[in-house]
């Protein structure tokens, strides 16, 4: 072996660790990591009529991961760590936009039902969700594993038709609708239509209708239907300083046995939010829910009972940046069970929201 060959061999051996390091770096690259964001929500409540301690409360922390899977799918997830210590895989789904005109979603999804039901908790316009939500499709909307296809129709305005099928699941605190029948023909389904019109440069009108149906563990057909209307104003020259939202929604839950439809919980709300400046919002809401449950309508032993609940809310929100807000809210409510129980309820509430990392924009 010549001296030159020997030197080359030594040099090659010395290069091996360098190559290995480079390879290791490449193998563990973080460039394809998903976008990560987190939101934390805290609140406090003072209500003299409730047997609850005052003080600041940790509501939830939501971790969002979002990334492109491959040329066909985008992955979206929201995993919620709830204040009681539980973890809720609230949304974990993939989206496909390869089919012209159609958006396909598969996984654990927030069903396209209504308007308020599409909002994440930190995007609620008021601290309390409308009473009718928790009594019909769920406080945070209808969430279930399934598949949805949303078709953007060729009509001259934005008209979207959505159809979805979901897993049959029993009713619980998060899912007031009983879709728990084990019959093989029980495939809960959804239909939704959303129309949006530009009334002028600044104001839009949105009209929506929703229907959801499945078979319950009692073998009856259970369903919910909803209608919503939203006027929204965002002046183009003041899009980050002015604007207002006028919104109303009605939801009805019912069941059908032996061909007879029984209307169960039903009601709605109307709300008005006004943007005072870049950092201040104010809002008022009125609502009524019938045959509904709420935490202050209880019998002598403290068991919740159904009745008519009427409530008004007013709030003001300080939003120093896009990533945090503090909100103060007052609500006055009264309930009537139709049999002499007519409690009233007054609450002062505060809520704080903080977001870090990447946070996808909320729907218009």
């Amino acid at each position, binding site marked *: 072996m010549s001296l030159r060959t020997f030197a080359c061999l030594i040099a090659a051996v010395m290069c091996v660790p360098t190559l290995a390091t480079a390879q290791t770096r490449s193998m563990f690259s973080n460039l394809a990591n998903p976008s990560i964001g987190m939101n934390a929500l805290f609140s406090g409540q003072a209500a003299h009529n409730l047997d609850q301690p005052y003080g600041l409360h940790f509501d939830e922390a939501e971790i969002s991961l979002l990334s492109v899977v491959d040329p066909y799918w985008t992955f979206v997830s929201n995993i919620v760590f709830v204040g009681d210590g539980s973890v809720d895989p609230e949304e974990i789904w993939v989206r496909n*936009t390869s089919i012209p005109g159609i*958006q396909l979603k598969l996984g654990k999804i927030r069903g396209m039902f209504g308007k308020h039901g599409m909002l994440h908790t930190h995007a609620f316009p008021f601290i309390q969700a409308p009473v009718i939500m928790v009594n019909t499709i769920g406080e945070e909307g209808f969430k279930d594993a399934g598949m949805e296809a949303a078709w953007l129709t060729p009509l001259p305005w*934005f008209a979207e038709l959505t159809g979805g099928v979901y897993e049959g699941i029993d009713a619980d605190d998060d899912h007031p609708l009983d879709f728990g029948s084990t019959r093989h023909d029980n495939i809960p389904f959804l239909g939704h239509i959303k129309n949006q*019109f*530009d009334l002028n440069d600044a104001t839009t009108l*949105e009209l929506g209708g929703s229907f959801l149906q499945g078979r319950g563990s009692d073998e009856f057909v259970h369903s919910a239907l909803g209608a919503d209307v939203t006027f929204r104003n965002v002046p183009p020259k003041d899009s980050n300083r002015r604007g207002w939202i006028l919104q109303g929604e009605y939801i009805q839950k019912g069941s059908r046995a032996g061909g007879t439809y029984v209307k169960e919980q039903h009601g709605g709300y109307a709300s008005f939010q006004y943007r005072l400046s870049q950092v201040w919002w104010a809002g008022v809401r009125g609502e009524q829910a019938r045959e509904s449950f709420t935490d202050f309508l209880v019998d002598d032993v403290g068991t919740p009972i159904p009745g008519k609940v009427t409530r008004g809310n007013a709030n003001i929100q300080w939003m120093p940046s896009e990533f945090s807000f503090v909100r103060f809210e007052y609500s006055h409510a009264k309930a009537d069970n139709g049999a002499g129980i007519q409690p009233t309820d007054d609450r002062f509430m505060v809520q704080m929201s903080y977001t870090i990392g990447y946070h*996808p924009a909320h*729907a218009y």
Partner: protein
Amino acid sequence: MRTPIRWMLVLIAALLAAAPAYADLKVATSLTDLASVAQFVGGKHVSAQSLCRGYEDPHFVPAKPSLMKAIQHADVFVSVGLELDAGWLPLVLPGSRNPKIQPGAKGFVDASEGVDVLEKPTGTVSRAEGDIHPLGNPHYYADPKNLEVVADHLAEVFSRLDAANAADYAGNAKAFKERMEASLEKWEKQMAPYKGAPIVTYHTNFVYFANRFGLKLFGSVEAKPGIPPTPRHIAELAAAMKQAGARVVLYQPYYSAEASRQLAGKAGGVAVAIATEAGGLPGTDDVFSKFDVLVSSVAKALSGKSGGSQ
């Protein structure tokens, strides 16, 4: 009777068959400047429209479903890039259900590619500094030279998608750049007396213009990017402006005229409304007229003859 009907059917079929030959490339953009450049480069083969209007803050475009509808059949989408449209485009693009213009598809264009990006953060990126852009300052369209880069980029994309008219696109891009160069010579002459002059802008979206024409950015009306000014910030900045002899405050129509005028008033200067995006003010319909008006406004303000408000 049968013969005329047959001829009519043949005529309709012929018209339908001929339609694609006249079909334009439908181009949608984030910003009016990009639509303007796309129209110059595309000429008669392209119809370009911007989702954000010139008098609308490009950071805060409401992701209206009607915007999704507007680009449902677009062949090309031109994003300004550098995350300027990150607050609304991630909703609007998938909402369009148009596979041709999704990121990664042939019809999606990031117009910032090839642009020499300024103010790229070094070290840690933190929102303690306000709503900063981690990829660098995205307002590159305030420098005429950067629009030449965009023109070349668009000519390449249009040629790839519509090879039959590639020569037209290349020719149009060349003509656009020649006109821009000639205009730039004129604008540089107008701005020459004010090299080194200090200016204050509402937001940090003027660095490319300032660099091109040798102006000195003295401060921003906003306390930090995206954070509205506080009375203390206004008072401190006004005092500093007085001391340094900075007297011109520039603001776009979508920013607070009140805060800008307040600052100018305290500093003994003038606040002048400017358009950094085509269509932002009357008479700024395309990128050339935008720069004509912008350069005239800034030069006039710096000369002390501004019609701005104190």
